[in-house]
Each structure stands twice: as structure tokens, then as C-alpha cells.
């Protein structure tokens, strides 16, 4: 048994989302008042009761959120930011370095908690589950930082809610894109999409050439990762379908080198794909960039350089060590 579970934090998230929905519903000037309020309320339901309601019901709730977003009924409030530059500078001159304390408390709690909390137990009752230590510690860090921030700034409790609501609406419907993509990855895996592609590639390419095997494996890792949005999902398919049979078994390559560099070739794909939305799309919106793909564009040259380096590294090392 565990005293603190991740489910408790999902409930807190659900409450925050419900409050966001409530704020929007109460805002008569909101350009997409009811559509947006409904969207955030539905998302809140999946966090509050996700474990309790049947998956097929959640599925239709998700479908409703997607329809709202696609019909352009989810928007952000028209109001200006809650503070002017002059106000912010005045606060900044008063608070100075104290402003950094809550911001640094989040990673500090996350690191300390990950290292320590998983070891705490009272007999057979554990404080937290070890596999969830990182996420729980990060969540605790966010809550501690909120408390410290409120104490330092003497701001009313409504302020973080108003600002959080504004930032969440800046991200908007894209907030659920990572979860939806993860679901798609699961469906792809269940349908065996990867095996089909790996089979086609293995049959089409001249794998008797050692370099072609390396190119096919690294390329498949990057390509699958771009399709699935996740290098871990691509690894089993690419390694099982191309890496092991051709690089290791046929050409006698070193599996450790192949796997390490292969996985990193997959990460080059992650840098290039909108399917890795939590790394590429959500940050673009969080940073208030006009171009949803700006982060991918900034990363693309780096990804290509690293990918070529990986190809050469693997070709020159995997058959030698």
C-alpha cells in the first residue's frame, strides 16, 4: 500500500481544470465562452474520474473535446495579461532574488524527493510507490513552490489561478495532444503498423551490404519515431525487424553499440516531428510563438547533423568492437 499516490495529484489537476472552466463560464467577454468552458470541464472529468468511468465513455469524452477543438470552439480569453510591465518591475525591485526561490524549489524538491521519498516506509506501508517517485516529487515541488510563492508575494490565492488559467488557455487544446498521440501510438502498436514497415524495408533493401544495414536501422529508428512520436515505441520494432536480424546476426555487429546509437538516432526523429507534441508543440505554445512548428524548425539542422554523425559512428564502430 502507498500513502501518497499519483491519483491524488490527478484529482488536484482535475480541480484546477474545473476552476479554469468555471472562470471561463463566468467571463461574459470570452470569445468562445461555452465551447471553451465545456472543453476544460470535460478534461477535468477525465482527470477526476478517469479511473472510475469505463474507457469507452472516456473515449467519447475525448472525441467530444476533439470535435470542440476542430470546430474552433476552444479559444483563449480576450483579456490582457494581469499586470503591466511597470507593475512587474516594481514587484521585481521589491522581491529581487526571493523571486527565484520558488522557481528553484520545484527542481530541488523533485531531485531530493526522487532520491529519498521512495525509500520511506512504515512497515509494509510505503510513503510513495517507487516507480512514481519522480512525478510525485515534481508535483509536490510545484505545490510547495506555490505555497512559498504566495507567502513571499503576499498575493491573494486567486492570482495563481488567474495566471495559470491564462497560461493554460495560451496552450489551449494542444495540451491534450501528447496524451492523444500516446493513445495513437498504442493503437499503431496493437495493429502492428511497425512490423509491416520493417518487413517492407527489409525485403526492399540490399541488406547484404554492411553499410546499408546500418543506414536502414538508423533510418527506421528515426522514421518510426517520427511516425509514433516516441523512440521507445520504435525501438522494439526497428531492432526486432532490422537491427538484430541484419546488423547482429548477419554481419556480426555489436548489439550494445547498435542499440545505444540506434536509440539516439530515434531521438533525432523526436526533434523533427510534431507527433512528439510534448517536446515540440506544447513548448512552442507555452513560449507564445506564432509558428506552431518554430521549435522543430530550430532543431532540424541539429537533428540532421547528429543523425549523420550517428550513421558514421555506428558504421565505423559496430562491426569493429
Amino acid at each position, binding site marked *: 500500500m502507498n500513502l501518497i499516490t499519483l491519483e491524488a*495529484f*490527478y484529482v*488536484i*489537476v482535475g480541480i484546477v481544470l474545473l476552476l479554469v472552466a468555471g472562470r471561463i463560464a463566468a467571463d461574459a467577454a470570452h470569445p468562445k465562452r461555452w465551447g471553451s468552458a465545456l472543453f476544460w470541464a470535460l478534461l477535468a472529468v*477525465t482527470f477526476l474520474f478517469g479511473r472510475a468511468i469505463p*474507457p*469507452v465513455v*472516456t473515449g*467519447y469524452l*475525448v472525441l467530444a473535446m476533439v470535435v470542440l477543438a*476542430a470546430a474552433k470552439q476552444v479559444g483563449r480569453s480576450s483579456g490582457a495579461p494581469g499586470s503591466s510591465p511597470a507593475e*512587474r*518591475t*516594481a*514587484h*521585481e525591485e521589491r*522581491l*529581487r532574488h526571493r523571486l527565484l526561490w*520558488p*522557481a528553484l524549489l*520545484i527542481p530541488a524538491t*523533485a*531531485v531530493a524527493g*526522487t532520491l529519498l521519498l521512495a525509500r520511506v516506509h512504515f512497515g509494509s506501508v510505503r510513503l510513495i510507490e517507487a516507480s512514481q517517485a519522480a*512525478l510525485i516529487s515534481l*508535483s509536490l515541488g510545484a505545490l510547495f513552490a506555490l505555497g512559498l510563492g504566495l507567502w513571499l*508575494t503576499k498575493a491573494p490565492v486567486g*492570482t*495563481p489561478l488567474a495566471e495559470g488559467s491564462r497560461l493554460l488557455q495560451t*496552450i489551449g487544446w494542444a*495540451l*491534450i*495532444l*501528447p496524451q*492523444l498521440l*500516446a*493513445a495513437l501510438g498504442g493503437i499503431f502498436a*496493437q*495493429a502492428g503498423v511497425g512490423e509491416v*514497415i520493417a518487413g517492407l524495408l527489409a525485403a526492399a533493401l540490399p541488406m547484404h551490404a554492411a553499410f546499408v544495414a546500418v543506414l536502414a536501422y538508423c533510418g527506421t529508428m528515426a522514421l518510426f519515431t517520427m511516425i509514433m512520436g516516441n523512440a521507445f515505441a520504435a525501438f*522494439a520494432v526497428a531492432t526486432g525487424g532490422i537491427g538484430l536480424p541484419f546488423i547482429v546476426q548477419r554481419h556480426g555487429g555489436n548489439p*550494445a553499440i547498435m542499440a*545505444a546509437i540506434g*536509440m*539516439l538516432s530515434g531521438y533525432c526523429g523526436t*526533434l523533427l516531428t510534431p*507527433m512528439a*507534441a510534448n517536446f*515540440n508543440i506544447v*513548448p512552442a505554445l507555452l*513560449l*507564445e*510563438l506564432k509558428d506552431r512548428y*518554430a*521549435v522543430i524548425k530550430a*532543431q532540424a539542422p541539429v537533428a540532421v*547533423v547528429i543523425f549523420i*554523425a*550517428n550513421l558514421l*559512428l555506428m558504421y565505423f564502430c559496430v562491426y569493429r568492437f
Partner: protein
Amino acid sequence: MIKLIGVLVIAVGFGLRLNPLLVVVAAGIATGLSAGLPFHEIIAQFGRLFVENRYMTLPVVLIVPVIGLLERHGLQEHAERFIRNSRLATAGRVLLLYMAVRQIFIALGVKIGGHAEVVRPLIAPMAEGAARARYGALPDQTVQTIRAHAAAAENAGNFFGEDIFIAVGAVLLMKGFFDAAGVNVGVWPMALWGIPTALVAFAAMGWRCHRLDRRVARETAAANRPRGKGAS
């Protein structure tokens, strides 16, 4: 072959810039139907996996209220002021230093970064502040470019340091795969063979950051030049 229809839907949908949520759901439904799953079953899969992956959204929702509170009290302005005191700082150098720290810490198993936690409140304002300290007001386009590179530094530092630490997902996943396939591979060789790529990634980002600084200099010079004389 027909199972690949989902991939086609994704490629066409993203290519036409349709709403990504819609494209993803359509691809899932097409793939599921082509694999012979009933419609209700596909929707149930979406529901089940959506709930299972709630952890991806959790940190953002919990962190933005704190970050918003601090930003309202001048956190970004403070990060900017802090960097203005350094004469050596440029946007590119700030980002490259961040990437180095991020990479080293994650290689030791310590996650200190994050887009919501660190990049938006601290790193992006510091990079912008360093550029402003040198060149004065920045054109909007330049600000956008600097921010996009800040996110890139976070991602590259995260991805290409992580594989060196043996107790995290990637190495354990590879180990698990090989164990299941009956191939004997140790965790240490896999972790150590991540180092060359980590160095290449850092060098590649160094080149990008250098390019970024030159671009900032060029764009601010063009924007600050008096109108009418810039045409020649």
C-alpha cells in the same frame, strides 16, 4: 499494407495543416478499422490510453499557476536583469551553457530542466535579456527565434544526455528488449556508447548557438538602421 493507412492520414492531415487532434483521432480510427477492430473498441482504446497517459499533462497544469504567479511579480524581468550584469553573455552562450548543464545533470540521473519549469520563466528571458543588453530593443521576429532555440536547447540537452545514465528508461528498455530476445548485453556498454553522440550533439548545438548570435546581430542591425538608408 492496408494497416499503413493511419500513417497516410497523419502525413496528409499534417501536410494540409488540419487540426492535429482531428488528424490523430482519424488516423487511430482508420488504423483500428483496417486491423479489424470494432468502432466502439477503438474509442475505448483511446479512452483507456488517454487516462493511462495523464502523467504527460500533470506537470504542466500543476506548474503553470506558480510560474504565472512569479511572472506577474517580475520573474522574467529578474532573470533578464540578472544576465545583464554579465558582459560575456550572448543569447547563444546562455543557451549553450544551459544545454551543457542540462546534459551533465541528466547524465548523472538528475532532471533539472523542463519547458514549463525552467525554459519559459528563466532560460528564455535570460537569453533575450543577454541579446537586449547588447543590441537594445529586439524585433519581434528575433525574440521568436531566440525562444524557439531555447526550447531546442532544452530538448537536445535532455535527449542526448539521458542515455548515459544506466538507471533511466532508455537503457533499461534496451536491456529488457535484449533479455527477452535472448541476447546477452550489459547496461554499461550501452550507456558508455551514448557518450560520443552526446558530444556531437553538444557541438552541433554550439554551432547553432553561434549562428543564432550572428542572426540576432544581423536582425537587430537591420531593424535599428534608419528607414530609407537600408535599401542599399
